[in-house]
């Protein structure tokens, strides 16, 4: 509009930010987080991606100083907007924000001044890019045996690495199963980050964390007035995850009533908020995860069979750490490196004795437990090598072993020559220490003879079955009552393949 036709002429220095009616709908569809602010840095508008990134609703955020909504490390003291004079252009900075879910998210932010037709500053526009994946990639470029935040080089993990990019490229629902601490969350995030939806939001909902009534509103949203206390419209997690991925953790805890609603969504991809007559067509990829046996739950009628069929399009069983013992060493080194740089400690590695205990432990809590043990040891250790006394007490009091006979000592001797060379007592004391350790392990193995005999028995059973089946593996698997894949896995495990 020409200046002479404007009924409310702008003051000479500062004007008002007038958002056209259509703008909120347009920016809602963009995959970047966007915030529009007035000259006093108060929020005028948030788009849907920004709502998902910060956890704040646009109505709550309106007219609030942006630092309280964005909560970036760049907001306090050194806000880039403060330095934007009348003539300055856009500024791009990298930093981090803390959202309402208490996550610290690395972001790349572009600050752009908004000017009226006369060039007067009327507000600011900020675009936010979630760079979690970039940060992970930058830190991991030198590391092999990783995918996203997953670490491992065992055959099982290599299979997952081969499988993940293929899954990521499709749009199918994924069901992740596996024991607690096996990395279901990380796999879900890796699938999202590798997919074409990586620029869209990744929304996680723990189905076991909320009661059924709240969970329905949380997942599907509600309309103002739908129930007592519903004073505003709420979009729901499905809608927030539009063009992105919705990760439903602990799907086994989803109440039966909501299972039906999820089933309906998976069929027609339309979300019906509570109390609304209109549906919203949602383009969301669903990844579900559970540590429970869903087939058993179906038999007990606590989980709907038809929902299982719909979720079970692509199924991934994550192996427990006891099935990928080769990765224990790698994971120990990986987490030690992580915590050493985080805590800024001069720790160079594990002592032979500490390593023996760590390699022999069963890790019922899987990778999460291993990580916690390394974190504990890194905190407690005040010297340059983690000793056995720096490990949690429950590790040193009981020593459950999973190693086949003669494996652990060789492993320690072969994989850690450097650790031994670094021993302050020299080569002789290292050799004595190694002998003591081997003796200790052999003694432990004698104590647990029954437990250790099983691998030998199982190996013999496999060989007998193969001989009986005249080398035909299918038939051998039938004789053993196993699946073919289990037989192959076991053959590789016991070195029968070669």
């Amino acid at each position, binding site marked *: 509009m020409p200046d002479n036709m404007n009924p409310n002429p702008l003051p000479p220095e500062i004007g008002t930010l007038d958002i056209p009616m259509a703008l909120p709908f347009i920016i809602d569809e963009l995959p970047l987080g966007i915030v529009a602010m007035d000259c006093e840095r108060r929020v005028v508008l948030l788009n849907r991606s920004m709502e998902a990134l910060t956890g704040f609703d646009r109505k*709550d955020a309106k*007219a609030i100083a942006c630092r*309280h909504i964005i*909560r970036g490390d760049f*907001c*306090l003291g050194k806000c880039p907007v403060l330095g934007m004079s009348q003539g300055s252009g856009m500024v791009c900075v990298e930093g981090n924000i803390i*959202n*309402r*879910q*208490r996550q610290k998210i690395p972001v790349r932010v572009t600050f752009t001044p908004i000017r009226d037709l006369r060039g007067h500053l009327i507000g600011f526009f900020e675009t936010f890019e979630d760079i979690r994946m970039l940060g992970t990639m930058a830190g991991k470029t030198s590391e092999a045996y990783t995918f996203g935040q997953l670490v491992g080089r065992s055959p099982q993990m290599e299979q997952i690495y081969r499988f993940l990019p293929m899954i990521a490229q499709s749009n199918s629902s994924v069901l992740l199963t596996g024991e607690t601490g096996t990395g279901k969350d990380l796999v879900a995030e890796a699938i999202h980050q590798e997919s074409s939806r990586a620029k869209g939001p990744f929304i996680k909902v723990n189905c076991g964390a909320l009661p059924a009534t709240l969970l329905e509103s949380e997942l599907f949203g509600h309309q103002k007035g739908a129930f007592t206390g519903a004073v505003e419209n709420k979009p729901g997690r499905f809608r927030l995850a539009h063009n992105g991925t919705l990760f439903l953790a602990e799907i086994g805890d989803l109440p039966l009533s909501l299972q039906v609603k999820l089933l309906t969504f998976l069929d027609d991809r339309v979300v019906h908020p509570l109390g609304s007559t209109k549906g919203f067509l949602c383009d969301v990829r669903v990844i579900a995860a559970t540590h429970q046996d869903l087939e058993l739950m179906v038999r007990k009628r606590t989980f709907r069979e038809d929902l299982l069929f719909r979720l079970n399009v692509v199924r991934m069983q994550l192996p427990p750490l006891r099935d990928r013992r080769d990765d224990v060493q790698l994971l120990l080194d990986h987490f030690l490196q992580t915590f050493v740089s985080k805590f800024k400690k001069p720790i160079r590695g594990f002592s032979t004795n500490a390593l023996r205990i760590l390699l022999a432990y069963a890790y019922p809590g899987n990778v999460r437990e291993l990580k916690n043990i390394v974190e504990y040891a890194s905190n407690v250790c005040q010297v340059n090598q983690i000793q056995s006394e720096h490990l949690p007490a429950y590790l040193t009091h009981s020593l459950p072993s999973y190693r086949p006979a003669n494996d652990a000592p060789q492993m320690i001797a072969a994989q850690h020559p450097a650790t031994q060379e670094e021993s302050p007592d020299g080569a002789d004391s290292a050799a004595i220490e190694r002998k003591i350790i081997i003796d200790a392990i052999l003694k432990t193995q004698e104590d647990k003879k029954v437990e250790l005999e099983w691998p030998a028995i199982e190996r013999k059973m496999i060989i007998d079955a193969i001989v009986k089946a005249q080398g035909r593996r299918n038939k051998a698997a039938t004789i053993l009552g196993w699946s073919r894949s289990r037989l192959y896995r076991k053959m590789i495990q016991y070195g029968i393949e070669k």
Partner: protein
Amino acid sequence: MATKALICLYGNEVAPRFDLTREVLIAVIGDVGKVQEEKELVLPHASVEIICNMIITEGIKVVICGGIEEEYYQYLTWKNVTVLDSVIGNWHAVLQRLAQGRLQSGDILTEEGSKNT
């Protein structure tokens, strides 16, 4: 029994981030909901670990802040400290509401009124 509360400050407001707090207010709230004592502390270059340590050693029972990372939230909760996070507003108003026993996580206290998200 009197309750000791800590509010992370940024000027006259509750600080947007717990980990970047450089100033805190420690208030003692009496049984009848009256603020008995207030003192402001400046913590230049204080790391988040130092702030957590101070909260424990000072016997603080309630912490009020804006954004806080999950690990510090869990740590303080584990140490029996109530953390009211995502609170936005002038610290005087926030303290009054706390003294009245009406403050919750996510409260936004603006000049126009208050809302809980």
